[in-house]
């Protein structure tokens, strides 16, 4: 197999490909069920995903540029976008940071009750958001369990911007943890040990070796949290107080418009929100491909 005196002259590897391919027959799959599964999948995706969202966009488009701007860009709508984006942005950032701590403990430290901690992280995925909203508002009002201490200090966790951020952190925390955790588990400890041997201190090792390796996962977790937080409705509606211009998020405004039968305005705001979600989804996909490529 090994030529000892190596021959240097080799023709390019693609030489046989120079001849034309023979005509292709219709490909037949060996595994069954292509037709059936393709039919079911395309039926569901078309009727349930593509068609409704297309109708939404077409409805908005039928307003014309001026009509769309008038419907989607009212002062109240602009305020709602601002509240939505800032609350979701802050919540996603907080989630990412807190999620990193929790993920690190779950992945690296044999903490007391580690398994329970691990299971509790998934509570927000299983608990209905309406329940979360209800109980958070009950906790942070003046008479609530936590509110009785916090409100006298001037910290209003219910019917306020802070309340929105709190429930959004709750809702997005599992995403932030679960994206980062497997990456920490797969980190090569020898790299850290090599850094330590080369004289790096504990914090230098973390900030120069560990964090750069985790950053794509943290950013992906942030984007997922942001996407989740931007669209959240059920929990926020309980705790925000829904005051226009101050604590009204975009989804709440959509519902408000809908209940006034102002379909055009509701649709226009929904399309803005949809655009944000889709661009976030595209970003997350790109990030996750980077993440997969890095881990190989």
């Amino acid at each position, binding site marked *: *197999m*090994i*030529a*000892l*005196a*190596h*021959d240097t*002259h*080799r*023709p*390019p*590897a693609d*030489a*046989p*490909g120079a001849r034309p*391919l*023979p*005509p*292709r*027959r219709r*490909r*037949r799959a*060996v595994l069954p069920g292509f037709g059936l599964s393709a039919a079911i999948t395309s039926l569901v995706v078309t009727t349930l995903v593509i068609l409704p969202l297309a109708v939404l966009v077409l409805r908005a488009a039928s307003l014309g540029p001026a009509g769309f701007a008038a419907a989607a860009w009212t002062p109240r709508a602009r305020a709602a976008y601002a509240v939505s984006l800032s609350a979701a942005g802050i919540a996603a950032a907080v989630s990412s940071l807190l999620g990193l701590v929790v993920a690190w403990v779950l992945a690296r430290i044999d903490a007391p009750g580690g398994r329970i901690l691990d299971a509790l992280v998934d509570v927000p995925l299983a608990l209905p958001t309406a329940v979360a909203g209800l109980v958070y508002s009950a906790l942070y009002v003046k008479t609530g369990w936590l509110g009785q201490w916090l409100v006298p200090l001037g910290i209003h966790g219910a019917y306020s911007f802070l309340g929105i951020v709190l429930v959004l952190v709750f809702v997005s925390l599992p995403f932030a943890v679960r994206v980062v955790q497997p990456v920490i588990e797969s980190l090569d400890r020898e790299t850290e040990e090599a850094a330590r041997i080369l004289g790096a201190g504990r914090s230098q090792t973390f900030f120069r070796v560990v964090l750069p390796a985790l950053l794509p996962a943290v950013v992906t977790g942030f984007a997922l949290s942001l996407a989740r937080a931007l669209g959240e409705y059920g929990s926020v509606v309980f705790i925000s107080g829904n005051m226009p211009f101050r604590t009204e998020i975009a989804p709440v405004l959509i519902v408000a418009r809908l209940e006034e039968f102002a379909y055009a305005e509701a649709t226009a705001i929904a399309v803005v929100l949809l655009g944000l979600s889709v661009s976030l989804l595209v970003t997350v996909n790109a990030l996750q491909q980077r993440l997969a490529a890095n881990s190989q």
Partner: protein
Amino acid sequence: MSIHVRDVSKAFGSFRALDRVSLDVPDGALLALLGPSGSGKTTLLRVIAGLEHPDAGTITEDGADVTERHARSRGVGFVFQHYALFRHMTVFENVAFGLRIRHVPRPEVTRRVEELLRLVRLEGLGGRRPAQLSGGQRQRVALARALAIRPRILLLDEPFGALDAKVRVELRQWLRRLHDEIGMTSVFVTHDQEEAFELADEVVVMNHGRIEQRGTPAEVFDRPATPFVMDFLGTVNLFHGRVENGRAFWHGIPIPVDGSDGTDARPRPARVYLRPHELDISRTASPSGAESSLAAEVVRVAPAGSVTRVACRPCGADADVQVDLPAERARDLGLRPGEMVRVTPRTARVFPVDHDYVI
């Protein structure tokens, strides 16, 4: 059952896995498809099994065209490289699967499966799950499962690839005996020439989706048809030289060219191949004269079981020559690195320079 593959081509995207391959497998033969990875050997096997559909060409079995027949109704026994055992079923249920699909009556299933488990020496393990078996045992379950449907063709994809060296040798001797007992047409894929030579009646060497050579192990090894086959089958010393009157010239000394009748007097450039075991080492010039041997310095001596591998550097050359001596002879000579010896080539194989190839 005989198999005839005619002008079969198969491409995956722009990668051409099979390029107009034709192959006849006679009834009852045990044939090895040998080649490096990407040579198309596994694709050819899967095309024969109906697991891949060829882009062009036909497959016939005993004269019947089966190209368009679905893998389900080919009735071919196939042993997958990683065995593809049904992990959620017991060994017994794995072997019984094909029989249950065919609605074979229960007592008959039990009888046949137990017979097969005896055949593959797994009696008593029918209740185990694949995860509870060793690699060699899984391999034999896969074989029993393929044999259960009484196929007239047995196809094996790298049957010993995932096993450790010792088990591998045991299993392939056992498989050879099994083939001789059952006598069905069998084709297996391997990248290991030792495996191909030990097990098969005939070896088909493949490269780049084409067949380079087909023949008995002895034919393929002794008379490689192409430089690729020469190179692929074990270590070779290769140099560019000159051929004249049936003799190749190496550092000025003539070597008889294998298979040449000596009639071609025209001198021409050639690639000359010397197998390590076709070179000899001695301390003094051989009786036939100094002109047939070359002075060289011993560089390295490495005992490797029945042979001892010696690397020599001919005087004035810039590359080492590999010589395999029988261990006994090496012991008698007592070679040491740094000492001067005579290297005598017994025979050489020559391919014209324009007969080029790629791996």
